[in-house]
Structures are given as structure tokens and as C-alpha cells.
């Protein structure tokens, strides 16, 4: 399940929904709003989400993860709207029989979410400026996006 939320993310409730008697491992990732980016002091951040395609593309990513890692349960929630420093912007959680698959699946999902969902973030800096962020620099730094197929 993938969901876009304009409300605060509650990781504990999301984690509980992944309990499964057959699961020996749980792994999660939380993306938080930090107060600095590329040397600029960040005050807050706004996420613009095109929800219809974020949902369909997100469901594809979770289906790909389920195909790669059998017996996986996976959820993802992404925030929209204005967020403050320290807020949780994205949460990914998985449970699976073993830890290796849990780590790998969680990494696969968050990497794909960052590169494939039509979501944009605008940073508002303490000096009054603002700017759109993009992930192309992630690719330039060698963190290649996962294959979409």
C-alpha cells in the first residue's frame, strides 16, 4: 500500500500493520526534513505531489519489490504540503522472513520512490530565498536509480 498524506506520519502505527507471524525481520526508513542543504540554511520545505500518478507508480514499485523478495509486506507513506525541520517526509516499512531481504527491499523501495514518483520539493531558506530541489545530483554522485522494469 502506498499513501500520500497531508497529515503527520505515525511510524509506530504503520509498523504495527506489518506484523506477520511468518516475518522474522522488520526494516524501515524515515526521511526527515533537515535544516541545511547544499550549504544553505533551510527553514521549511513544501512538497508538491501529483497524487494520481504517485499512487499508480508507487503501487508498481511495491509490486516490483514483492516480486523480487518473496513473502514481503511493504508499505510507504509520503507527505504533501508544508513541512518543518524534523518532520518525517517519507516512511517505508517492510517485513519479511529474513533480515537480508528486509534491508534490500526497503532500500529498493525508497530509492525508486525518490526517482520515480512525481513529487517535488521546494526549500525555503532562512535568508528569504527559495528553490526547487532535484535528484539529478544523486545520479551524478553515483546513486543510480533502480531500473523501472
Amino acid at each position: 500500500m502506498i499513501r500520500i498524506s497531508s497529515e503527520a506520519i505515525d511510524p509506530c502505527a504503520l509498523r504495527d500493520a506489518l506484523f506477520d507471524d511468518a516475518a522474522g525481520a522488520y526494516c524501515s526508513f524515515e526521511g526527515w526534513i533537515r535544516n541545511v542543504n547544499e550549504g544553505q540554511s533551510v527553514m521549511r520545505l513544501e512538497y508538491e505531489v501529483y497524487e494520481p500518478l504517485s499512487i499508480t507508480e508507487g503501487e508498481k514499485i511495491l509490486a516490483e519489490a514483492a516480486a523480487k523478495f518473496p513473502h514481503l509486506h511493504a508499505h510507504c507513506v509520503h507527505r504533501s504540503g508544508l513541512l518543518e525541520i524534523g518532520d518525517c517526509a517519507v516512511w517505508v516499512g517492510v517485513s519479511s522472513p529474513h533480515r537480508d531481504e528486509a534491508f534490500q527491499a526497503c532500500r529498493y523501495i525508497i530509492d525508486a520512490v525518490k526517482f520515480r514518483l512525481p513529487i517535488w520539493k521546494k526549500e525555503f531558506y532562512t535568508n528569504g530565498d527559495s528553490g526547487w530541489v532535484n535528484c539529478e545530483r544523486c545520479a551524478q554522485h553515483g546513486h543510480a536509480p533502480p531500473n523501472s522494469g
Partner: protein
Amino acid sequence: MTSETKAITVRYFAMFREHAGVSEETISIAAETAADVFEATRDKHGSAEPLAHCKVAINDQMADWEAVVNEGDTVLLFPPVAGG
């Protein structure tokens, strides 16, 4: 090769919307592909983002830049994404 003029609705997001000054417009364009629409609107609105960094959807389906556009289609132009 010349293409016939088609009415295409273009939707802009994030920085593209700010460059265009509108979130959506319908244009008449001699376009064969989604890439043609991207280039025409880039020239019109002055965006500098390379096509390879952007994504496109046609009628709410993710598409390739070489996908053919038809009269009445809605083309969604996505600047570089940054979720998470």
C-alpha cells in the same frame, strides 16, 4: 516532415508551472511526439531543464518521450523529481 496541427492540453508542475505562469494551457501545435510538446513549451516559457532529466505522462499514463500525441490529449510535463 510536417505534422498537422493538434490541440494539446499541457499541464505543468513545480518549476515548470512557475516558468509558464499557469498550471495548464491548451496549445495548437504541429507535434508528433511528447518530446515535440516538451521542446515547444520549453521554447515558449524559457525553461532550461534538459529533457533527459524530466518525465512525461499522457492522459495520466507515464509515457516515453517518443510516444505519439494525438488531438485532444493531455500531456503532463514533470520537471526533475525530488521525493523523500
